Structure formats: structure tokens, C-alpha cells
């Protein structure tokens, strides 16, 4: 096993542990902090798989902007751990576990079925310059559509979040 393989397995263990802790915490704030750990583990993995620009974007956008937005909302709404409902485990985690086991089995079977996918990944790196030139040559229309989507999301978030008069028909 090479040094990059060791790094991959260590990062995979960190990501899996942090994600598992994140989805099982009852307090949303703890879950979000564990999720930040998971995203920070994901960024070196992206770098290892040859995407340095995306590794930086992962830290800046995901761990930086999106998670801070989550934390702001949790602080603004004063969301705590919430009450424990009776029979909650059976009603909610049992379907989730059954769904996870089924789809996990199917995914692993599909992945192992294909012998070409046993090929070991090489070490390669696509720098930001190549990626930027590629995106703007091949996907310039998609970049424009993504910018339009972000603009619509901005307007929509402002419209939903504004403090206006209550709509009619409100009790």
C-alpha cells in the first residue's frame, strides 16, 4: 500500500465517523459541527483525487458559507434538541435502516459486478487553469444558467425571508 492509499483510507475513516456522528446527534448544532469536520475531511480527498480547485471550493463554499448559514439559522430560531417522542426509534430509524441496508446492498453488488472498476486510480492532477479553460470552453451555457439559478435563489430567499404583513386567511 502506497502513502496515498494510506491517506485515502485515513480520510475515509474520518469522513465516515464524522458523518455517522452528524446524522445521529439530537442537537442540530452538534450535528452541524460534526458535518464541518466531515467536509474538512472531504477536501483533502478531493485534492488526492486530482481536483485542487474543487478542494478549495469545498472548504470555502461548503464548510465556510453553507455551514455558517446553517449555524446562523439554528442560532436565530433557537432550535434545541427537541423532545423525544415515544416509539421514535421504531417509527423513524427502522424504515431508515431498512432502506439503507437494501440500497447499500444493491449499490455494492452493482459496483463489484463490474471488473473494470477494480482498476487502481492513478495519481493525476488537473490544475485550476485547465479546469477553468475547460469549463468556459465546453460548458459556458451551463455557467450562465447556474448564475441565473443563483440569482433566482437570491430573489426567492429574500421574498420568503422578508417581514411583511401576514397573508389573508391566516388564523
Amino acid at each position, binding site marked *: 500500500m502506497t502513502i496515498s492509499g494510506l491517506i485515502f483510507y485515513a480520510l475515509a475513516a474520518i469522513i465516515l465517523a464524522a458523518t455517522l456522528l452528524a446524522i445521529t446527534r439530537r442537537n442540530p448544532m452538534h450535528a452541524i459541527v460534526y458535518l464541518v469536520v466531515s467536509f474538512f475531511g472531504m477536501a483533502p480527498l478531493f485534492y488526492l483525487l486530482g481536483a485542487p480547485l474543487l478542494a478549495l471550493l469545498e472548504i470555502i463554499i461548503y464548510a465556510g458559507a453553507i455551514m455558517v448559514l446553517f449555524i446562523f439559522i439554528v442560532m436565530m430560531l433557537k432550535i434545541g434538541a427537541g423532545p423525544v417522542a415515544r416509539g421514535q426509534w421504531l417509527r423513524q430509524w427502522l424504515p431508515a435502516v431498512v432502506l439503507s441496508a437494501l440500497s*447499500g446492498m444493491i449499490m455494492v453488488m452493482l459496483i463489484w459486478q463490474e471488473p473494470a*472498476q477494480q482498476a487502481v486510480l492513478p495519481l493525476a492532477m488537473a490544475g485550476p487553469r485547465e479546469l477553468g479553460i475547460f469549463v468556459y470552453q465546453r460548458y459556458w451555457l451551463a455557467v450562465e444558467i447556474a448564475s441565473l439559478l443563483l440569482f433566482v435563489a437570491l430573489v426567492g430567499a429574500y421574498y420568503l425571508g422578508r417581514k411583511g404583513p401576514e397573508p389573508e386567511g391566516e388564523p
Partner: protein
Amino acid sequence: MIAPYSQVLILASVIFIMGAACCVARRNLIMILVGVEIMLNAAALAFIAASLHWGHLDGQAFVIFIFAVASAEVAVGLALIVHVHRRTGTVLADDYSQLKG
């Protein structure tokens, strides 16, 4: 030499399934959005691994668009949560049962 492609795919699918389980099992709307984030991140990991496996840059280009869609989705989703919290005073999905009568 990093690791077999299949192991990276299995890692991505396990993370994706964790996100799906989080969406199904949790009642808190914030945790449901967190599950969606985990799923989008797992898809990004699978795209990057595929991009490395086949030596094309298309996968990495799609991950940029996944990031854009994730940010837009989080902005609108959190605005919806704030709006619904202002109207009903709760963020638990079980409490939205007004239509039951």
C-alpha cells in the same frame, strides 16, 4: 496509485446512504436539509473519482455546478424554514398536521 475505483465508489455510496437515512429518520427540518447536503457531497465525490478514472475533466466541471445548485438549494431551503417557523412556531416536520382536521 491511490485505491481501487470501486472502493471510492463504495465510500461515496455509503455517504450517500447516510444522507438518505438522515432525510428519512430525522424530524427536524434543519437535519433534513443537512441530509440533502450530505447526499450532494457524496455525488460530488463520485463525480471526481469518475473524472480521475476516465481521465476526463467533465466530472470536475459537473461538481462546480453541483456546488452552485447546493448553495441555491440551501439558501431557499433555509428561507423556507425561517418562513414556516415564523408562521407555525416549530421546525419539527411531525407538527405540520393542520390538514388532518
